C-alpha cells in the first residue's frame, strides 16, 4: 500500500512538474484545413500582387479574389507581395513596395486594416504580437542602411516597439522568448551580410549577433529548439546552403551543404527545394529533423524537375505538397499539388510569380 501511494505521490508530483513546464496557450479546437490562400508576388512596379484561393471540398482554384471581396480598397492589394501568414483569425499579407501589411479576416479575406511599414519584408508571430522585418532602418554615414524589426499588436495593429538589426533583414523565427532575424545584406552586393540577430523579446533589445551564412533568406523553427535557415550564397563562389542553428547554444549545429532555395517544415520533416538556373532543373530533398540527416532521393516523383521552383508549402494535416512555379516571372505561374508520397495530383494556373501559401480552416480562432 505504502509503495503504491508513494508511486501515486511521485506521479502526481511529476504531473505538477510537467505542468510547470507547459507554456500557457489558448485552448484550441483543432479545425481541419479546408483550403488555402496563395499570394502572388507580381512584378515590381506593376501594382499586381494578387491573392488566389483554393477550396479542398470543391477542388476549385480562384485567381485574384482580393478586388471582388474588397472592391473599396483603392488600387487593390498592391505592389509586390512578400509574405502571407494566418495567425489566429486574421491573415496578414506583407506588400513590400506598397509599404504596408494588409490585414484580412482569415475566413473571408475581407479587409480589416493596413499597417504602414516602409519596405516591409517578412512577418512572424509570437504571443499575440506580430513581428515584421523592414529594410528601411537607420542610414549610416557611408549611405548604407540598416534594417529593423517592428513589433505590432495584433488587436490594435499599432506598432509598439522597433529594434534596429543588421543589413536588409529578411526571415525571422521566434523561439522561447527570443526572436531570430536573418540579415541578408541584399543591398551590399557582392559582399552581403551573414549575421543572425538574436533579440530578447521582452526587453526588445539585441542580445547577440552570430555569423552564420551569407545572404540568409528564410527560416523556420522545428520542434527540437533548432532553426532551419536557407542561405542563397553570393551568386558566385559561395553557393546556397541549408543550416541548422541551435537556439540553446546560439550556434550553428550543422551545415547540410545542399543547394537550397526554399523550404517548409511540417512535423519532423523539412521539405527543401532548389531551382538551378544553369541546368534549369529543380531538386527536392527531404531532411529528417529528428536525426538531422538528409533523406536520400527526391520527395517529388520524377518528371517535375523543370518546374521553376519559387517556393514550397506543405499541408500540416494531410502532408499534401504544393510547389509554386514562377515560370518566366512575367507571365502567369502555376501551383502544383502532390500527395505526401510525391505523386502528382493537380496543377492550377496562378498569378504572376506565385510565392506564399497560407492554409485556411473552416473557422478560425
Amino acid at each position, binding site marked *: 500500500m505504502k509503495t503504491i501511494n508513494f508511486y501515486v505521490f511521485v506521479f502526481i508530483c511529476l504531473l505538477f512538474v510537467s505542468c510547470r513546464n507547459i507554456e500557457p496557450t489558448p485552448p484550441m479546437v483543432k479545425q481541419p484545413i479546408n483550403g488555402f490562400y496563395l499570394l502572388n508576388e507580381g512584378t515590381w512596379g506593376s501594382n499586381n500582387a494578387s491573392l488566389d484561393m483554393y477550396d479542398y471540398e470543391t477542388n476549385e482554384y480562384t485567381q485574384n479574389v482580393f478586388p471582388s471581396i474588397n472592391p473599396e*480598397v483603392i488600387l487593390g492589394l498592391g505592389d509586390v507581395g512578400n509574405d502571407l501568414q494566418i495567425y489566429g483569425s486574421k491573415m496578414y499579407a506583407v506588400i513590400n513596395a506598397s*509599404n504596408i501589411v494588409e490585414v484580412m479576416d482569415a475566413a473571408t479575406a475581407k479587409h480589416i486594416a493596413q499597417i504602414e511599414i516602409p519596405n516591409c519584408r517578412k512577418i512572424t508571430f509570437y504571443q499575440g504580437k506580430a513581428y515584421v522585418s523592414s529594410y528601411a532602418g537607420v542610414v549610416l554615414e557611408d549611405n548604407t542602411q540598416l534594417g529593423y524589426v517592428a513589433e505590432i499588436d495584433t488587436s490594435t495593429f499599432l506598432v509598439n516597439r522597433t529594434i534596429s538589426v543588421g543589413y536588409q533583414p529578411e526571415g525571422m523565427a521566434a523561439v522561447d522568448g527570443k526572436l531570430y532575424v536573418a540579415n541578408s545584406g541584399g*543591398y551590399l552586393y557582392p559582399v552581403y551580410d551573414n549575421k543572425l540577430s538574436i533579440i530578447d523579446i521582452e526587453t526588445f533589445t539585441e542580445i547577440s549577433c552570430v555569423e552564420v551564412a551569407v545572404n540568409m533568406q528564410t527560416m523556420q523553427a522545428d520542434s527540437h529548439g533548432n532553426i532551419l535557415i536557407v542561405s542563397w550564397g553570393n551568386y558566385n563562389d559561395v553557393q546556397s546552403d541549408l543550416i541548422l542553428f541551435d537556439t540553446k547554444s546560439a550556434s550553428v549545429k550543422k551545415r547540410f551543404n545542399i543547394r537550397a532555395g526554399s523550404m517548409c517544415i511540417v512535423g519532423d520533416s523539412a521539405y527543401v527545394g532548389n531551382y538551378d538556373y544553369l541546368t534549369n532543373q529543380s531538386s527536392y530533398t527531404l531532411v529528417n529533423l529528428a536525426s538531422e540527416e538528409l533523406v536520400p532521393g527526391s520527395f517529388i516523383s520524377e518528371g517535375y524537375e523543370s518546374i521553376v521552383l519559387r517556393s514550397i508549402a506543405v499541408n500540416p494535416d494531410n502532408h499534401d505538397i504544393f510547389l509554386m512555379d514562377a515560370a518566366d516571372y512575367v507571365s502567369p505561374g502555376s501551383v502544383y499539388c502532390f500527395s505526401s508520397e510525391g505523386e502528382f495530383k493537380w496543377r492550377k494556373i496562378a498569378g504572376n510569380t506565385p510565392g506564399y501559401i497560407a492554409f485556411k480552416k473552416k473557422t478560425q480562432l
Partner: protein
Amino acid sequence: MLFVSSRKGSTGIMRNFRLLFLFVLYCVVTFSASAQLDTTKVYALAEVQFSPKRQLKEMVPFQTMDAGVIERLSCQSVADAVRYFSGVQIKDYGGVGGIKTINIRSMGTNQMGVFYDGIQLGNAQNGQIDLGRFSTENMESIDLYNGQRGSVLQSAKDYGSAGTIYLNTRKPVFNDSINYHLRATMKAGSFGLANPSILWEQKLSDKVTLSASAEYTYANGKYKFRYKKVKNDGTTAYDTTAIRENADINALRTELSLFGKLKEGEWKAQLYNYYSERGIPGYIARNLYFHKQRQWDDNFFVQTHYKQTFWKKYSILVNAKYAYDYTRYLNPDTTLQYIDDTYKQQEAYLSMANSVNIFPFWDVSLSADYQFNSLDATLRDFAYPTRHTGLVALATAFKFPNIKLQASVLGTFVHENVKRSIAASDIAVFTPTAIVSVRPWRTIPFDIRAFYKRIFRMPTFNDLYYTFVGNSMLEPEYVTQYDLGLSYHYHDGKHIFSDFGIQLDVYDNQVENKIVAIPSSNPFRWQMKNYGQVRINGIDVSMDFGLQWCCYWNLDLRLAYSYQESKDLSYVADSPYYGGQMPYTPWNSGSAVLNLAYKTIGLNYSFIYTGERYSSSANIPANYIQPWYTHDIALSYAFKIKSVKCTASAEVNNLFNQQYEVISGYPMPGTNFKIILKVAL
C-alpha cells in the same frame, strides 16, 4: 516593367536593376526647334503645309510634318508631334519632363535612328532617345522613313536603322533687304509651365548666316489624376483623385549655328547644349503616390556638315561630330536603397559620303563612317567600355521614267574594349537593302513600291556591361523587313480641292535575337539575353486632304490609321501565351488632324486614338488595358503691330478630360491648356 524582378531581396542586383530599369526609361540627348507663321505667305499656306514634291520623290513609306503643321498641332515636344504619324507608338511616361520614346512598327525603340540636322543622335549607353527633350520651337520639319531614306548621297549611318526620324531645324532664309530676324516666344499654361525662347538670325555676308537661340523651360509638372473603380452592380467601389508630384523640370537649351553657301554646295557648323534638372514622378501603386528620385542631365554636341557637287556629277558629303553627355541620378528616398550615380558618355564621329552620277539615270555612292563611344559610370566594378564602330555603305540607284530601283549594302564593324571583365566579341556584318518603286502611268503620280531590308542593332553598353545585369556575350538584334505599298498624290492650286494624298502599306517584320532581361542564375539576377523573337504584320494608312476657297479659306485634313499584329514568339510553342500581342501594342490606332484657316486666323482640332492592348505578352484579363483617345483644340491669330509680326494662340488639350495611361501606373494629364505669344522682327 518586364525587366524588373518581382522580389527585392539581394538588392545589390535590385538596385542595379532598378537603375537599369530607370535608365531604360530616362535617356540622354535633347534638341529643340521652333516654327514661324509668316503672314505674308497666307495665300500660299496650302503649299507650306503640304509638300507634294517631297512625297513624289520618296521610294519608301514616308511621312512628314513641316513647321506650319507642327506649330498648329499644340505640341510641346517632338514626341507629341510624332504621335500623329501612322505606324508609330510612343511610350509616354507622362508630364512635361516624362520620358517619351518612339517605336516604329513594333521593332523596338533601339532599332530606330533619330537624326538631328542629318547627323544621328547617339546614346550608346541605353540606345534610347527621349523625344520629349526636343521642343518644336526651332523645328522646320520632322520626317519619318520606314526602312531607310532613299537619298543618293547620305552617310553610312543613314542605312543603319530599321526606321529613321529626321529632325530638321530651321534654316535662316533672308529676303534681299533684310539681314536679321529676331523672334521671341512665350508659352505658359498648365503644369505651371513657363517657357520663353528667343531666336536671332543674322546675315553675316552674302554667303554666311548665323543663327543663335535659347530656350528655357520650367514646369512644376503637377496635374490631377483620378482612379475610379465601379463594382459589377454599377455602384462606385472607389473614386480617388491625387496630384502628380515630383514631376518638375528646369531645362535650358542653347544653340549656335553658322550656315555657309558654296558653289553647288553648303556647309554648316553648330553647337548645341541642353541642361536639365527634373524630378522623376514614378509609378502609382496602392499606398504609393509619391516618389523622390531626381535626375540631372547635360547634353552637349558640336557638329559640322559640308556638302558640295562638282561638275554636276560628283558629290561629296562630310559630317563630323563630338558629343558629351552627362547624367546624374539620385534616389534620396530612405524607404529604398540610396543611389547617387553619375554617367558620362563621349562620342566622336566622322563620315564621308561620295556619290557619282554616272548617267542621268544611274547613281552610285560609297559612304564610310567612323564612330568612337565611351562610357564612364560610378557603378561598382564598372567596365568602362569603349567602342569603335566602322560603317561602310555601297549603294546604287536607277531612275527611269516608270521605275526606280535602289540597292545598298551596309558593312558594320565593331570592336570594343573594357577595363574590367570581358569585352563583347568583334562584329563584322553585311546587311542589304533593296527598294523598288514603279509608276505605271508616267503622268499620274501613283506609285507602287516595295522594299526589303535587313539590319541589326548593337547591344547597348547597358545591355553588355551594366554591373551584374549585363551580358557581354550578347549578339546583335536583327530585324528583317518586307513592305509593299502604294502612294498617290494630287495637287492642283487652281481648284477648291487642291490637295489629296494617300499612302498605304502592308508589311511583315521579324525581330530575332531580341535583347530582353530574363532571370538567369537566380530569381534576383536578371540578365540581358538574346531571347526574344517577334513577328509583326500590319497595315499603315495615311491620307491628306487640302481645300481652299474664296481666296482666304483653307482646310487641311490629315488622317492616319494603323492595324498591327505583333506576336511574341519567345515562349515555347505549346505555351498559352505563345504569339501573344507584344506589350503596349494596340491592334488599332489612328489619328486625325483638321485645320481650318481664314486669313490669319487658324483653328486646329486633333484627335488620337489608341486601341485596347495588354501590358504583357501574356494577354490575360489581368493585363488588359482599355483604349484611350484625346481631343485637342487650338486657336491662333496672327497680326501685325507696326512692323512687328505677332501671333497669339490658345490651346486646350484632352478636351473631355479622359483619364488614361499610356504605360500602366503612369497616369497622364486630364484637360490642360496653354497660351502662346510670338513676336518676330
